[in-house]
């Protein structure tokens, strides 16, 4: 069981808050699909297990590529690996890139999940974020995709925005739940180093919202989502039963994945690797016949810490029996002690034999998780 991630590093215009790796010039875009095929050929032995359960095109903006080019890549993957009978194949798309013809082609070439970068249904929010679509385009895109046959649609939303309000956030959520979506990825705005938005905060021209507002909006998200049948299964992911993102879930469950394209990350259970964060460096590497991905061999400590950090982000939590068996009884005892502390604080709960952070408390999870880590 493995996943494949393809990073499409192109955007028409950089959004103000974004620190994903993407470039505004389209250099290499025409050869991109072939370069991915080439990288695939070079790295096909990376994954320790098959079949491929999930394929995910992320970015950047994968929807800037024509359906043909995407098909080329998908076919290449299908020829290289054995694919599970019911794979999850996702494309991230910008709402304004979608039109009926494009959507039909995506369905034809095998996509069964769409992840739309909506971010907000409020035009003011969208403008502040530097998104190129408007609210109308966002709703249309969802409706259109659903009508034409996508029955697994996710949208991204951002909360905790400056210049916005809890009212706007609430109406965003209500709008979302009226749409034919099955999944939501929501995160609080992060002022990432080097982004225009972060610079504005630094210069004092943008004031981040108060913590109380962040918490209010998080609570609203959690509560409205459960009222609408969405399960808060990971800090920033919510989905209807049966519609959790299988690809992202694999990240939390130690399932290997091969990441192709600039800046893509890969994991094969014993090590992690990441591609150069530059289109040119990536292209050169492939042309030289070697992807010199940076590589990190995982120590036992790393493996335990990753297990803790990824599992505690989810409603599945950590299994201390597994920890005892794999990492030893001392670790399990230590974890038991930390767990007790947070049980008492009513941040952690026991679910079957697992400890998990209560979804309502996901908002304070960093410190809790840090406490669980081993040194």
């Amino acid at each position, binding site marked *: 069981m493995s996943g494949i*991630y393809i*990073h499409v590093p192109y955007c028409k215009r950089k959004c103000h808050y974004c620190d*994903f790796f993407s470039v505004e010039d389209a250099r290499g875009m025409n050869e991109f699909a072939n370069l991915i095929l080439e990288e695939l050929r070079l790295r096909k032995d990376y994954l320790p297990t098959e079949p491929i359960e999930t394929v995910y095109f*992320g970015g950047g903006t994968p929807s800037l590529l024509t359906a043909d080019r995407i098909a080329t890549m998908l076919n290449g993957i299908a020829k290289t690996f054995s694919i599970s009978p019911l794979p999850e194949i996702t494309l991230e798309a910008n709402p304004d890139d979608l039109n009926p013809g494009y959507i039909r082609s995506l369905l034809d070439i095998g996509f069964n999940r769409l992840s739309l970068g909506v971010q907000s249904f409020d035009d003011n929010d969208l403008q502040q974020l530097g998104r190129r679509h408007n609210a109308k385009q966002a709703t249309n895109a969802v409706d259109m995709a659903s009508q034409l046959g996508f029955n697994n649609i996710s949208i991204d939303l951002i909360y905790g925005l400056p210049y916005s309000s809890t009212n706007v956030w609430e109406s965003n959520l209500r709008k979302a739940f009226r749409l034919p979506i099955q999944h939501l990825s929501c*995160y*609080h705005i*992060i002022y990432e180093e080097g982004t225009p938005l972060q610079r504005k905060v630094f210069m004092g021209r943008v004031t981040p919202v108060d*913590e*109380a507002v*962040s*918490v209010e909006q*998080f609570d609203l998200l959690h509560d409205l989502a459960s009222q609408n049948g969405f399960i808060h299964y990971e*800090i*920033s992911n919510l989905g209807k039963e049966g519609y959790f993102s299988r690809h992202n879930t694999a*990240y939390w469950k130690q399932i290997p*994945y091969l*990441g192709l394209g600039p*800046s*893509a*990350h*890969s*994991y094969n259970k014993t090590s*992690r690797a*990441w591609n150069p964060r530059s289109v040119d460096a990536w292209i050169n590497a492939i042309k030289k016949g070697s992807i010199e991905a940076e590589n*990190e061999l995982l120590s036992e400590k*790393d493996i335990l*810490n*990753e297990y803790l*950090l*990824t599992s505690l*982000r989810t409603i599945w939590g950590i299994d201390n029996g597994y920890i005892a068996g794999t990492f030893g009884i001392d670790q399990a005892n230590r974890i038991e002690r930390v767990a007790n*502390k*947070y049980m008492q*604080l009513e*941040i952690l709960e026991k679910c079957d034999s697992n400890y998990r952070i209560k979804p309502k408390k*996901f*908002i*304070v*999870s*960093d*410190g*809790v*998780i*840090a*406490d669980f*880590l081993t*040194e």
Partner: protein
Amino acid sequence: MNTIRNFCIIAHIDHGKSTLADRLLEFTQTLTDKEKHEQVLDSMDLEREKGITIKSHAIQMDYLYNGTTYTLNLIDTPGHVDFSYEVSRAIASCEGALLVVDASQGIQAQTISNLYLAIGHDLEIIPIVNKIDMDAAKVEDVKDQIVDLLGCRRDDIIAASAKTGVGVDAILEAIINRIPPPVGDPNAPLQALIFDSVFNSFRGIIAYFKVFNGTLRKGDMVKFFNTNREYDADEVGILRLKMVPKDSISAGDVGYIISGIKDSSEVKVGDTITHVDRPCDKGIAGFEDVKPMVFAGLYPVEADDYEDLRASLEKLKLNDASLTYEPESSLALGFGFRCGFLGLLHMEIVQERLYREFDMDVITTVPNVSYSVYTTKGEVIDIHNPSGLPAPTLIDRIEEPTIRAQIITNNESLGSVIKLCIDKRGVLKNQVFLTTNRIELTFIMPLSEIVFDFYDKLKSISRGYASLDYHIEGHQVANLVRLDILLNGEMVDALSTLIHRDYAYNFGRRMCEKLKELIPRQQFDIAIQAAIGAKIIARETVKALRKDVTAKCYGGDITRKRKLLEKQKKGKKRMRQIGSVEVPQQAFLAVLKMD
């Protein structure tokens, strides 16, 4: 004996003592070019960096003058108040002193108090205005100050530059012509004053002495008068750049003795060396067993390092007899040591040396002075730690050490300096105009009041002008209470302080405020309380953390997230757990950081 001159240099930090010493070595050709390196006398790195001499040393020079070769012994003195007893013993070993004053700075408090000490020992003072090569030099002004202070003739003052060498010959000439040779009887019973000692890992303790009477020969059986212990004089000699063994050292001269002593506490500065066979009647006057005045808990940052810390302190003590330590434990900090220091600088030096020489990271608790508690049963207990205070009902009275503080300041800051001292429970004893714009103030004040932030405050209200020197004066009854700090109801022993009752409320409130700044928010509210006994006198709350998540963990970049959280974990590891509250180490020094 007529050709010996023993002298020291009295100077404020940075006024040029070390540079002048180098010049003297050079002019007397004691220092060949090959051996020459800057500031020979300050040998420890730390001293060099702090610009101070921690341990005094001595060095002998030969100087040919008018056809006679003179022996000049320069006895170096430590440059800080904490070591004032050692300074006094060095001064007691000399017949003369060079008073070095920076031409751009003028006379400072420390110069004055050491000067008084030197005059008190009848030393011949040779005043020197140094750094005359500087543009900012105010040679005539500084000469005025010196004339006012010493009542000497203007012509007696030598204008010099230790940097360029101007005036150094005149200084050497003055040393020979103005400083009297030592007196003493080489045939009388031996009396030699120990003015310093150092530890050498191969040879053990090396004691430096000046022979007042008699002659000390290699192989003699000697006795230390005050400790009453006997040793073989395995080696005696004089100090050049290196130790030079000699067969004997006679009255008037300065030398060293090695006698297989391993424990620095057996060699007490101020003690008298005499012969076992033919002892002197009395020791040289002025012996004092110096006791540490300031105490603080030292705890290893990593609890596992306790034994290492003990070993390090043991080694430090080998060449720092004034450091004391005894095991102590704290609920908050675990196992550590209660250490006694001569003063705050001494404490800082020990901390620094632990860190640099032994790679030991320590948490230091708030320092306190040593109190004498008189119980209702008539006992006297020395308290070095607030948590050791007996129950209030058992206390008859508490006495605290006082100091005589000498402060020199200018007219502009006079008012605020006096106010500061009075706020610190000081009593003004004397006020003297040294010049029209330099005033010397003498205060009697509790030592505890200068332990915290006095010096920094003094400097800041006088814009760096005021200088301070102090000596232990005595004891006085004090109305003290123990102020405790509670975190979510649990007392933090390491944060308890003894404080004057009138100051307790204000202090408790500021303490709570400072702790509120220093303790990071956690998953629950944290109540910070200050209490006297059962009575809560101040309270602050650290509100619970409500948002602590950077949710994005996108594209499978787990490594970055893991590293971030591991870093956070490291930060937590360095914190101390009080009940359920995590307290950062710097909180234990909160008191020192209050403004």
